[in-house]
């Protein structure tokens, strides 16, 4: 059959339609979800929950995330405590270097530049203490009998920290705990700055698990840490609700945890911290060694 006998026609219009080039696609920015920092990794919450903070998605930690963080902190503790004090000092100094180079990120999150700089200085200050605290806080004791008697400070172990809201406050509770060889599980108050700090730590040769950072509701997770038998001390620096502080202290008594009570809520952490934050998380071991006449 010839084409002409059919209804077949060219469908093309005489004048082809004007084809406009597609508009240049506008780039979609990658929206960040602020995740937890556990064992050197950035997992989402086990519960799958998130919450909004200033328009950002932030992981909402559950009790099981706290449990995982304690496992990671416990696993990392012996090796971190066993590293030389000089080495820990170098790692803390490295944190200061990395934080210095990422000042702008914190500024973009609303942390005043002066506060970030104070935080950098705080890391440097504690880095210097790493190989000096044992001499200053420890001692050689005069005893009767042919013995050397030495008081040697040792880290207490895994420390849970309810961090204060300010960024400098956050650094001021983490640094004194880890410099002596403790590992920490931190319940952070200002999530974005805390997770950005976690990114600094993750790129600073801090072994995974030495610092673990959880974001979310401290009133939900802190009681699980306070009652946890494998946590050696709890620092309540950031607890503002005194009833909660009392409840946490009571729970902590279950395994005789060392408790650091909430300090002055007006404290801006700008002053000289002194030895107290470090010394509070040290145990003193007394060693008798025969002189051997």
């Amino acid at each position, binding site marked *: 059959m010839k084409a002409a006998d059919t209804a077949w026609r060219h469908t093309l219009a005489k004048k082809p339609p004007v084809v406009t080039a597609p508009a240049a696609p506008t780039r979609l920015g990658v929206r960040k979800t602020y995740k937890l920092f556990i064992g050197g990794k950035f997992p989402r919450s086990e519960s799958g929950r998130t919450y909004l903070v200033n328009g950002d998605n932030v992981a909402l930690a559950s009790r099981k995330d706290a449990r995982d963080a304690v496992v990671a902190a416990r696993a990392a503790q012996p090796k971190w405590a066993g590293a030389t004090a000089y080495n820990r000092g170098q790692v803390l100094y490295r944190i200061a270097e990395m934080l210095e180079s990422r000042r702008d990120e914190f500024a973009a999150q609303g942390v005043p530049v002066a506060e970030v700089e104070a935080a950098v200085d705080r890391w440097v200050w504690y880095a210097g203490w790493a190989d000096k605290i044992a001499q200053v806080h420890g001692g050689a004791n005069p005893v009767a009998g042919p013995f050397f008697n030495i008081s040697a400070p040792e880290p207490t172990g895994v420390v849970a920290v309810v961090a204060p809201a300010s960024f400098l406050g956050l650094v001021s509770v983490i640094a004194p705990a880890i410099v002596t060889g403790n590992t920490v599980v931190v319940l952070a108050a200002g999530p974005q700055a805390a997770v950005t700090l976690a990114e600094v730590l993750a790129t600073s040769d801090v072994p995974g698990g030495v610092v673990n950072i959880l974001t979310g509701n401290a009133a939900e997770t802190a009681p*699980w840490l306070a*009652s*946890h*038998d*494998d946590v050696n001390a709890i620092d309540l620096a950031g607890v503002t609700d005194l009833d909660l502080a009392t409840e946490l202290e009571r729970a902590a008594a279950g*395994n005789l945890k060392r408790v650091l009570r909430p300090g002055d809520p007006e404290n801006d952490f700008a002053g000289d911290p002194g030895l107290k934050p470090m010394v509070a998380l040290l145990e003193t071991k007394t060693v008798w060694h025969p002189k051997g006449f």
Partner: protein
Amino acid sequence: MTATLDLRASLHGLPGVDKVGVEARAAALATRSVKTTAKAAAIDLAIRMVDLTTLEGADTPGKVRALAAKALRPDPADSSCPHVGAVCVYPAMVPYVAEVLAGSGVHLASVATAFPSGQAPLDVKLADTRDAVAAGADEIDMVISRGAFLAGRYDHVFEEIVAVKQACGDAHLKVILETGELATYDNVRRASWLAMLAGADFIKTSTGKVPVAATLPVTLVMLEAVRDFRARTGRQVGVKPAGGIKTTKDAIKYLVMINETVGDDWLDPAWFRFGASSLLNDLLMQRTKLTTGHYAGPDYFTLD
């Protein structure tokens, strides 16, 4: 000779194991979530099923006595915690454990027959077994000669098991197949049937001395074997996975698998055991979490 041919024919007449199927089935059963009261019941059952084991060259009388004391009273802080199923040690350590366990209801298992390799003459293996029983063991964990099995000398393996069973007297005989060395699920099924036909009271996966120990799919194949064996002969045989089961989560996966494969009859320490050492600490920590409402720490349980 006819018996040999019959044995070979019947073992090779067993249907082959669908490798992909059995692994998928085991993986599917491992996804069940067991919570609250069911979890508490599962933990207590798992504790009662533990064969608390130490099989080290460095075992001393003091160490095995401490282990036996732990078997009797796993959680000293909680008298409602059940005791474990058995203590499993080398024959030389049996007398020390027997003193502690006497009259307690905790069984005393001993490995025998040139554990873990099984590469010794038969009379040595039988003497090993008799000594362990005489010293007080009421359960004997024997290893099969994998070399003979893999070479196809099924009659040799069969007769060894029969002879050891006879040497055991009243003691229960657990036959270790060492599935990590048997290479295929088909071999695991054949070895299971071989052991059961020869009179095993229990079939056990592994010695714990080779890299691949108990796995869920291997245990599933063995559970199917004991189920089919009972359907065929009316005799019930127990199963004991051993090695590599370290957490409560793992243990509960096995319990789920028993329930779904062979049913309630095997959910009992008389018919199912876990060969393990560190598993018990994790079970105790999980149990403490459930009873106290807060997380437990390893500092509060004895290390072994």
